[in-house]
C-alpha cells in the first residue's frame, strides 16, 4: 500500500480503533491517528513529484472494485488537491486538540467521526474518478451530521437536519449532472461507461452549448450548496452556529472547500461553454453574497453566525474570481481555499475556546475578554486580521489576486485575460474590504475589547448535556498549552503564506492555467467578443509600447 491509500486507510483504521477503545483512550487514539495521517500527508507531499505542474500523482490503481459501473479506483491528485490534503491533515488534529476539554460525552464517537470524515475528505481529494470523488464528498455528510446533531448547541436538531437535506439535495443534483454526462459519454463511445474525470471533461466540452448550460447549472448548482452560494447558503450559519468547535473548524476549513474544489475540478472543465454562459449569473450571485452577507455579518450578535456569514461572503469572492476565467483569479481562488480554511478555522477555534469557558456566543453577553484572556485575544485578533486580508497575512495574498483577477477579466487583449467580469465587478467586490472591516472590527470591539462583560450564570449552559459535565469555572482561564498548540500551527501557516506565498503560487499556477485554458480559448474563438460588462473598455485600442513591461521586468 502506498501513501495515497494510506491517507484513506489510516484515518479509517483510527476511527475504528477509537470506536473499539474506551472513552478515556479515545482522544489519544484520535489525535494519534490524526497525527499519523498528517505524517503520511507530509510524506506524500515530500514525495509528490508533480509540484509545479498540472499533473496528477500517484495515479495509483486501487482495487478494481467498481469497474462494472465504469468507476475506476484511480487515486491521484494534483497540486491543488495535495495542498488541500495537507490542509485537511493539519486541521483535523488541530480541531481534535481543541476539543479535548469541550467534549466530555461520547468521546469515542466524536473522535471517530472526525477520522471518518478525514478519510472521506481524503478520498474526495484523491479521486480521479467522479464517482469515487462523490463517494468521499457525500460520505462526509454522515459524520458531519452526527457531529452537529450529537455534540452541537441548543438548536442542533434543526441545524443538523438542514445541513443534511441541503447538502444531500445539492450533491444529488451534481450527481445527476455527472451521470447525464457519463451516459452521454458512454453512448458516444460505444457504450463504454466511464466516470474518469479526464474523459468526461473531454466529452463535456464537446457538447452543444445548450447542453453544457444545463450541465454546468446542475453540477455547479450542486456544489454551490456546499460552497455555499447565495441563496442556498442558509444551512451554513445555522450549522456553524450549532456545531461544536471542532465541527465548525472542519466545516469551514475543509468541508465547504470540497464544494469549491468540486467546482474547480468538475463543473468548470466539464462544461466550459455552460460556465461561460452562466458566469454572469453566478457572478451576480457571488456579488450578492459578498456584499449582502458582509452586511448581514455586521448586525449579527451571535459570533459564530457572524463568522459563518463571513464565510459565505468570502467564498463568494473566491468563486467570483474563478468566474474571472484567468490565471490570476484562479490562483487567487485556489489559494483562497487554503487561506480561508486557515483563518476561519482559527477564528472558530478561538470562539470555541471562549464558548467552552462561557457557554455563550452572544456578543451582547460576553465581551472585553482581552482583560480576562490576553493570549486568547492575541489569537482572535490575529485570525480576524487574517480574514480581513491584512497584507502580510495569508488572506491578503488570495484576496488581492482574486480582486485583480476579477478586475482584469474584461476582455482586454493586453493581458491575455479574456473574461466577462471586469472593473465594475471588482469595484463592487472590493467594497467588501470596507464592509469586512466593519463587521470584523465590530466583532472585535464588542468581543475582545471594551469593558469586561461576563455572563452571570455561565455554570448552567443552555446547550444541553454536551457541555454540562464541567461547566464550573470561577474565573475563565487563559489559553493553556494544548489550546495554543492547536492554534499556533494555523497562525504560523497564516504568516508564512502571507510573507512567502511564492512557492505556493508557483506551484498552483499550472493547475490554475489548466482550468482556465478552455475558457480562454472559447472566448478568444468567439467571433463577436462580448463587450466588457460595464460597457467601458479600457483603452485597449491605444497602442502601448512593449517597453513598460520590459522596464518592469528589468527592475526586478
Amino acid at each position, binding site marked *: 500500500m502506498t501513501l495515497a491509500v494510506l491517507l484513506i486507510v489510516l484515518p479509517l483504521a483510527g476511527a475504528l480503533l477509537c470506536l473499539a477503545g474506551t472513552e478515556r483512550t479515545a482522544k489519544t487514539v484520535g489525535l494519534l491517528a490524526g497525527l499519523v495521517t498528517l505524517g503520511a500527508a507530509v510524506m506524500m507531499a515530500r514525495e509528490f513529484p508533480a509540484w509545479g505542474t498540472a499533473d496528477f500523482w500517484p495515479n495509483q490503481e486501487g482495487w478494481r472494485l467498481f469497474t462494472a459501473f465504469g468507476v475506476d479506483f484511480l487515486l491521484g491528485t494534483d497540486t491543488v488537491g495535495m495542498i488541500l490534503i495537507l490542509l485537511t491533515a493539519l486541521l483535523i488534529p488541530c480541531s481534535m486538540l481543541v476539543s479535548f476539554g469541550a467534549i466530555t460525552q461520547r468521546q469515542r464517537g466524536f473522535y471517530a467521526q472526525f477520522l471518518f470524515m478525514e478519510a472521506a475528505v481524503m478520498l474526495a481529494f484523491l479521486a480521479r474518478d467522479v464517482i469515487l470523488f462523490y463517494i468521499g464528498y457525500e460520505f462526509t455528510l454522515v459524520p458531519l451530521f452526527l457531529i452537529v446533531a450529537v455534540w452541537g448547541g441548543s438548536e442542533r436538531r434543526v441545524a443538523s437536519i438542514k445541513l443534511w437535506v441541503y447538502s444531500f439535495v445539492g450533491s444529488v443534483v451534481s450527481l445527476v449532472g455527472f451521470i447525464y454526462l457519463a451516459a452521454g459519454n458512454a453512448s458516444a463511445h460505444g457504450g463504454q461507461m466511464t466516470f474518469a474525470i479526464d474523459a468526461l471533461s473531454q466529452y463535456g466540452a464537446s457538447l452543444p452549448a445548450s447542453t453544457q448550460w444545463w450541465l454546468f447549472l446542475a453540477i455547479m448548482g450542486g456544489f454551490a450548496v456546499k460552497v455555499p452560494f447565495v441563496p442556498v447558503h442558509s444551512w451554513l450559519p445555522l450549522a456553524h452556529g450549532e456545531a461544536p468547535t471542532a465541527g465548525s473548524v472542519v466545516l469551514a476549513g475543509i468541508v465547504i472547500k470540497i464544494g469549491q474544489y468540486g467546482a474547480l475540478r468538475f463543473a468548470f472543465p466539464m462544461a466550459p461553454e455552460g460556465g461561460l454562459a452562466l458566469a454572469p449569473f453566478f457572478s451576480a450571485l457571488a456579488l450578492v453574497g459578498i456584499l449582502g452577507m458582509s452586511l448581514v455579518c455586521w448586525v449579527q450578535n451571535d459570533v459564530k453566525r457572524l463568522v459563518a456569514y463571513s464565510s459565505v461572503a468570502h467564498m463568494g469572492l473566491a468563486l467570483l474570481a474563478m468566474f474571472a476565467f484567468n490565471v490570476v483569479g484562479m490562483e487567487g481562488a485556489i489559494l483562497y481555499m487554503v487561506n480561508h480554511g486557515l483563518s476561519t478555522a482559527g477564528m472558530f477555534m478561538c470562539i470555541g475556546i471562549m464558548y467552552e469557558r462561557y457557554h455563550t456566543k452572544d456578543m451582547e453577553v460576553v465581551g472585553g475578554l482581552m482583560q480576562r484572556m490576553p493570549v486568547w485575544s492575541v489569537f482572535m485578533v490575529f485570525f480576524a486580521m487574517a480574514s480581513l486580508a491584512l497584507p502580510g497575512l495569508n488572506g491578503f495574498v488570495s484576496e488581492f489576486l482574486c480582486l485583480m483577477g476579477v478586475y482584469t477579466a474584461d476582455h482586454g487583449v493586453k493581458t491575455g485575460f479574456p473574461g466577462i467580469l471586469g472593473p465594475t465587478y471588482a469595484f463592487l467586490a472590493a467594497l467588501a474590504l470596507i464592509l469586512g472591516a466593519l463587521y470584523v472590527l465590530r466583532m472585535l470591539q464588542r468581543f475582545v475589547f471594551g469593558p469586561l462583560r461576563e455572563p452571570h450564570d455561565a455554570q448552567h449552559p443552555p446547550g444541553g448535556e454536551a457541555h454540562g459535565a464541567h461547566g464550573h469555572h470561577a474565573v475563565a482561564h487563559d489559553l493553556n498549552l494544548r489550546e495554543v498548540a492547536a492554534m499556533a500551527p494555523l497562525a504560523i501557516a497564516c504568516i508564512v503564506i502571507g510573507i512567502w506565498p511564492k512557492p505556493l503560487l508557483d506551484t498552483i499556477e499550472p493547475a490554475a492555467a489548466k482550468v482556465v485554458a478552455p475558457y480562454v480559448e472559447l472566448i478568444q474563438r468567439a467571433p463577436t467578443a462580448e463587450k466588457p460588462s460595464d460597457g467601458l473598455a479600457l483603452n485597449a485600442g491605444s497602442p502601448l509600447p512593449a517597453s513598460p513591461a520590459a522596464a518592469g521586468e528589468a527592475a*526586478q
Partner: protein
Amino acid sequence: MHAALLPLIALATGDGAHAADGHGAAHAAAAYADVGTLQFAKATVDTSYGWLKWMLLAPLASVALCGAFAMLKVRGRLPALFTVASFAVAAVLAVTVYRQWGPTLFSTHAPLAVPLMDWLTFRWGDGPFQSFTANFGLYLDGISILWILFVTVLATLIALYASEYMESDVKAGYARFFFAVSLFVTSMLILVMSDNLVGLYLGWEGVGLCSYMLIGYYASQPGAVAASKKAFVMNRVGDLGLALAIFLIWTNYGTVQYDGLFQAIASSGAGTVQGSWSKAAIPFLLLLAVCGKSAQGPLFTWLPDAMWGPTPVSALIHAATMVTAGIYLLARMAPFYTVQAIGSEWAEPALLTVGWIGCATAFIGATIACGQFDYKRVFAYSTISSLGYMVMGLGVGTAFGGVYYVFTHAWFKALLFLTAGAVMHGMAGQVDFRRLGGLLRVPGFRITMLCMLLGCLWLATAPFSAAALSKDIILYQALTSDVEQVRWMGWLGLLTAGITAYYAFRVWFRLALGPVRIEPGPDQHHGHDDHDHGAAGHGHGGHDHGSHGAHAAHSGGHGHDAHGFHPHPPGLRINFVLVVLAVGSILAGLPTYLEKSEGFNWIQRFVQNSSAWIRATGGPEHGQILGRDGHGTLFVLATGVVVAGIALAWVLHAGNRALGDRLRDSMLKTPGLKWLARGSEHGWYVDAVYNALLGVPLWLGAQVLAFLDRFVLDGVVFAAVGRLPGFLARVFQPLYVGTVQAYALTMAGGIALIFAWVVWIWLSGGAS
C-alpha cells in the same frame, strides 16, 4: 529685516529652478498639469546594500520579542529597551545609507534598488501585461531616504519618551504597547522603502493596523475601542482607493514597480497621450487613499478620535509619521497628476482636486480646532490642518513645499504632542485646558511649557520658524500661480494661518499663563493606572495602587485637592526627548539657510531626486502677489495674520480671559452665531452627518438583509420549498381511509384515471 528675508524665501521656493525647462510665467491654465517631457532616472540595482534589510529586521525582531514578552506575560522594561535599541539601529542604518548612497543619488539622480525576497510574482505569458511582480524590495530615492531618516530618528526618540510615559503600564500592556510600536515602525519603513505599490500597500495597511491597535490600547475603554474601529474603517475606505488604483495602474502600465512604472509613464508621455477613464481614475483613487490615511477631506474625522491612544502614539503615528504616509504617496505618485500620464482632460481637475481637498481640510481643521477645549484634540485638529497644507502643497504644484512641511511638521508636532503628553502625565490625564492654568510656574513643568511654546510658535508659523519657511513656500506657490483657483487656495491658506496662530496660542496661553490651576483629570483616557507613579517610585508613597480608587472619586468633579494631588513633573527621559525635539524643530529650518548645492538646499535635493520632482511648477522666481513683489508681500501678509492671530489669542485667553469667556457665552446666546461656536466645538457635526447619511441607512439595510436572509429566504422561501412535500403528502393523506372498501375505491379510481388517460392519449394521438 524685511529686505534681509527676501532672498531666503526666494531660495526656499526653489522648485522654480527647473523652470528652465521652458515653463515660464506665461503658462496657460491648461498647462497647469502639463510638465512637458517626463524623465526619470533608472534605479541602480545594488545588492551590496542587502544589509538594508536589517532596517526592517531590527524592528521586526523587536516585534517578535515584545510579542513573546506579551504572550508570556513577562513583566519588566525589557520591551522598551529592545524597541528603543532596534529603532536606534534602524536610525543608524538610515543615516548610514544616506551617507553612503546620498552622494551618488544627488549626483546621478539614480535611486537605489535592493531586491530582497520574492513575494507576489508570477507570469502567465511572455508578452507585456502577462506577468505580475510585487516583491519585497527596497527603492531608495530622495523622498524615501528623507522619510526613513526622520521616521527612525523620531521613532527612537518617541520610544524613549514612551518608555517613561508608559511606565505605569509595566504590569499591563507595556509589552503590547511596544509590540505595536515596533510593528508600526516596521510597517512604516516597508511603506516608504518598498519598491512597488503592493509593498507600499502592505505597509499602508500595516501602519493602519498598528494605529488601530494603539488607538484602542486602553481596550477597556469603550470610547477608545470605538475610536480605533472608526480609524480602521475610514482607513479602509482609503485603502480601497489604493487597491483599485493599483489595479488600474497595472492594467494601464503593466507593472506596479516604481522603476518600471515611472519609465512606462515617461515613455507613454512621449507621444500624444490619450486619456481614458481607467487612467483618469488613478489620481482620484490615489487621492482617496491619501484622504483615508492623512485624514483629509471627507475622511478626516477619525484622527481626532485617534487621540484615545496614549500620547506618544499620537505624537509618533498620528502626527509625525503615519499620517504623512498620504503625503508620501502623493509625492511618490506625483507623475500621475500630469497630463503626460493621464491625459489632458483629467490631469488638471485631478491636481486641482488635490489642492482643494488639502486647502479645505486645512481651513476646516483650523476652524474646528478653535472650538475645542481639549488641548490634545486641538493638536489633533491642528494636525489635520497641517496635513491639509501639505496636500495643498502638492496640489498647487510644489512637492518640495509639501515635503518640507512634512519634515518640519514632524518635529514640532511631535514636540507639541509630547509636551501635551507630559502635561497629561503630570495632571492625571486632565485634557481640558480650562481646568489647568499657570503651568509655567508649576515646578518641574517649565521645560515642558517652554517646549510647548516653541511648538506653538512653530505651529503658528511664526516668522523665521522652520514651519514658516516651509509653509510659505506653499503659500507663495499658490498665490503666485497663474490659475485663479489656485490663488484662491492661497488666500484661504493664508487665512488659515491666522486661525492657526490663534488657536495654537489659545491653548498655550490658557495652559501656561494665568493663575495656577490644577484639576487632576478623571484619567479616563488612561485606563486604570496611567498616572499611578506610586508604583514606579515617584514619591507617591502612600498612594500606590489604592490611588486608583481615590482618583476615581475625582471624576465626580470636586474635592480634587482633598487628597493633596501633586502633579508629578516629567522625568529625565521625557525632558531629554522634549529638548531634543525642540532642538530638532529649530534645526529643521536650517536647510533653508545653509549651503546649497547647485541652487538646491538639503531638503530640496531629496525631493529633486525623487519621483515627486516631475514638474517645474515653481512658478516665477519673482512672482507677484497683489501686483507687488511676491516674496515681500507674502512675508508681510503671513507675518501679519500670524501676529494678529496671536494677539487675538492674547486678548481673549491671557490678557482678559473673562472677555474671551463672555464672548463665547454671548455667541452661544445669539441665535445667528450659536451654530458657529457649537459647530466648531463638535467638528461641524460631520460625524453626525455621516452617521445619519451612511451609518444608519447602512445599518438598517443590514438589518433588513439579515431579516430577509433569516426569516424570508430561510424562513419562508426555503421553508415553503421544504414543506412542499409534506404539504402534498397531507393532500393525499385523506385517501388512506383505512377500510378495504375505501382502498378498493381509490384503487379503482386510480385504474379509471389510468384508463381515462390512455383514452385521452389515444384520442389526442388520433387527432394529431
